[in-house]
């Protein structure tokens, strides 16, 4: 299997690594770099537990992305959303709205929410629900996740401040 030397900037820190052609971004993040906040839920791009952001706010499934194709890219995982110990407004909204139960979908769900709100800062409830399709949560029935994204949208756009 061909090996590739690549550079990934993960959560703002540059990392060099050698990966086989078939190495997924998910495995590279988890096993090679120790970013275990990116989760394996299905390996087939159905559940979104491995969601990460590429070059800012584009969400992708780590399990469907080959690490070698990400050379030179900047990756954000849930661990990289918080800055200087302060949670990202989306993270805080998930906490405040009780949108977290087992937490296994949470890192991917939060990143997906960040990407939804970047694309559309004031989404309707239906747009949020549509945007979350592809991210499975089995604990919450999505109710409080949707409320958290609405709340985060308000926080980010300064409503109520």
């Amino acid at each position: 299997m061909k090996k590739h030397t690549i550079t990934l900037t993960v959560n703002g820190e540059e990392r060099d690594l050698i990966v086989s052609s078939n190495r997924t971004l998910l495995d590279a993040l988890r096993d090679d770099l120790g970013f275990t906040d990116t989760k394996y839920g299905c390996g087939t791009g159905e559940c979104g537990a491995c969601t990460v952001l590429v070059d800012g706010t584009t969400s992708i499934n780590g399990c469907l992305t080959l690490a070698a194709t990400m050379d030179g890219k900047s990756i954000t995982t849930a661990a990289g959303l918080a800055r200087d110990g302060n949670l990202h407004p989306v993270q805080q909204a998930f906490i405040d709205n009780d949108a977290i139960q087992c937490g296994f979908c949470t890192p991917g769900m939060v990143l997906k929410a960040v990407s939804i709100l970047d694309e559309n800062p004031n989404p309707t409830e239906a747009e949020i629900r549509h945007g979350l399709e592809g991210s499975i949560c089995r604990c919450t029935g999505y109710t409080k996740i949707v409320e958290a994204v609405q709340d985060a949208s308000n926080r980010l756009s300064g409503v109520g401040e």
Partner: protein
Amino acid sequence: MGEFKVVGKRVERVDVRAKVTGGAVYAADVQLAGMLYGKIVRCYDYAHARVTSLDLSEAAKCKGVIKVLGPKDVTQKEYNASVLDMMVSANMRGVLGDIDDQSIFTDHVKHYGDAIAAVIATSEEAAERAAEKIKVTYEELPVYLTAEAAKQPDALQFRPEKPGNLAFELPEMAFPDNAYAWGDVEDSFAEADIIVEDSFYVPKQKQCQMEPGSYIALYDDQQRLNCWTSTQMPKLVQKKLANLYELPMTRVKIHATVIGGGFGARLGMVLEPETCALAMAVPGRPVKLLSTREEDWVTSPSRHPGKYWMKMGFKKDGTPVACDAKFENYKGAYYVDASGTAFTTGAWLGGMYKFDSLRYRGESYYTNQSICGAFRGYGNPQTNFVMEQMVDRGCAELGVDPIEWRKKWHKTVGDDGWCIGVPYNSCALDECLDRAAEAIGWTEKREKYKNQTGVKRRGIGVAVMNHTSGAMPMLLEHTVCDVLLHQDATATINLACSDMGQGSHTTLRQVAAETLGFSYDDVHIATGDTDAAGFDIGAHASRTLYVGGGAVKQACEDVKRQLFDRAALELEEDVSNLYMEDKIIHVKGASNKSISVQTIADQGVNNFMNPENGELIGQPGQIKGYASFFPPHNAPPFGATIAEVEVDTETGEVKVIELVNAHDVGKAIHPGVVEGQLDGGAQQGLGMALTEETYYDEKGICQNNSFTDYKMFGPSDMPKMTNILVENPDPTGPFGAKGVGEAGIVPPVGATANAIFNAIGVQILEAPITPEKILKALEEKDANS
């Protein structure tokens, strides 16, 4: 009960900061030095076959391979991954028919995905590549997928001690005529004016917890077997592994990690025995075993599917005279939980309505499918689908309103609960029904949706349920808790209760803080270490808050009693004259006489002699509270759901418009936690009613063990949802609380089915109610009219 300071508040959950930043450590996230990786070779070609040859030689030569293991290279001891045998007395094990019929690897494949052999290698990829080189040949055997097939006289026998492939039926010793019963149903049916009867099918639903099974095991240098697992039941898994590997409990340690959802899929052992078998083969090296989603699907238990027949009789005035029912479940390849669900499915039936007579028979048949076991509700969703549709058919024939009928005839305080002889001690189901009906506009909508003729037809339906808080008195209920009071007057609560994500560590901490009179921040819940924690049955049966919370409360009261005893000595007052406020113990009516908890706690640890008089300053000894708690009851929660649906009579599609869930939760220790249980339960209940089933082809090959092919309700499928928490404190629950972990999944099942009945005037007898089944039922209805 007065005003609570911590209980009832929406405090920040203990685990959410770690979870939202990805810092929470699940079993798959644990990295240990020198880690090896296991891969199990499973049979995916047949559901029933004999292994005729197994060639491990090519795999052993692969790069990175440390060991290749066949059935003879690991313990030959048979076991039962379930834990029911540890929840009953020794003589009851025989009554429950428990047998050890599982093995680490098998040469007799009994289901799609059965384990044949394994590889241990230096990386996951190396293990996978080597596993592909293991050559297995099989002799195909006949496949039995249903009870009807398995009980045929010429069917191959799964186990010689279980003739007819009948793994379990309610035992004659405890259940005369193999039935859970009261009265005489035949006599009662003779008095009935209206009799309804039908045969239903309930599906093999999967928990689909987000974290697939992940395990690490290490047989360490102290010859201790360590297992990192996100099990629901650390202490029982510890004992089960000790039994299997013939080790004392002191040499088995479970490192209970954060759990990525359970819903029953992690009740008892799952792949802990296999992971430990691999680790025992390479002492001193940790071995990690990660299931793929597809593998997890067929190795962890599912909901029991099966045929469910029911007959109900009513008098003209609505009196329910008799109910007769039989559930023949397709239990899967191994005995696991054959007895439990077969019984409880009838228990929930018996606990609901005041029938003059009732008879329920439950039978579990071996089939060539993956195992069935615990899944949120434990038989209750199955019963809800059938019982509630039969009640609504009866109401339709009687011409009575389904809510009015239920209010009149549901069991309540003083009636026998789900366990005959244990009466209900609290019930607010009437209020649940009234408030749900008002919230959704029941009366107006029932009227409005009569006699619709359009393509799209609306319907509204109700269902109710009873459940339990813990499994007492059928099964052992016991939690041990100790509370260490630190010298700075904060406390660590040590116990083995696991939190699957439902929020139990948060609510246990609230119970502790409230009882101690401390702030939420003053208390820490320590779990996850079976060396340190005393006994706990584990997270099942909606018990953690009720029983675990009872233990926490009692242990904290023990701390408080010790504090008051010491304060009484220091203040030279009687304990009855003392009260505590903001961690200061005061003398009633004497504002200048007090001592702080901080002082007592500190003097207990840092105890010195007064150099002036040679006496000790304060009372020596660090305070520790303790409880070994057996609950007095099972505080049954009740609930009602009203569902509104729209059925497209051309496509058969069902859109759920709205769901109102009203539950008698006793006391909501944390309202957000309770709402979360009802929200999440509803998503699973709607799935069971409408979309979720694991399918097998005629050869027993699983067709949809993946998120691609198994349809759950997604964010856009979920209806508008309202949760109503009816707080009617239970006299036995901690601060009045009841268990709500399972309740939420149950009534959405029956309510959805009844809403469809209301919309189209015909009942669908098989769940999930797919568009095909609706169209077929409509065609049959047209043909008959």
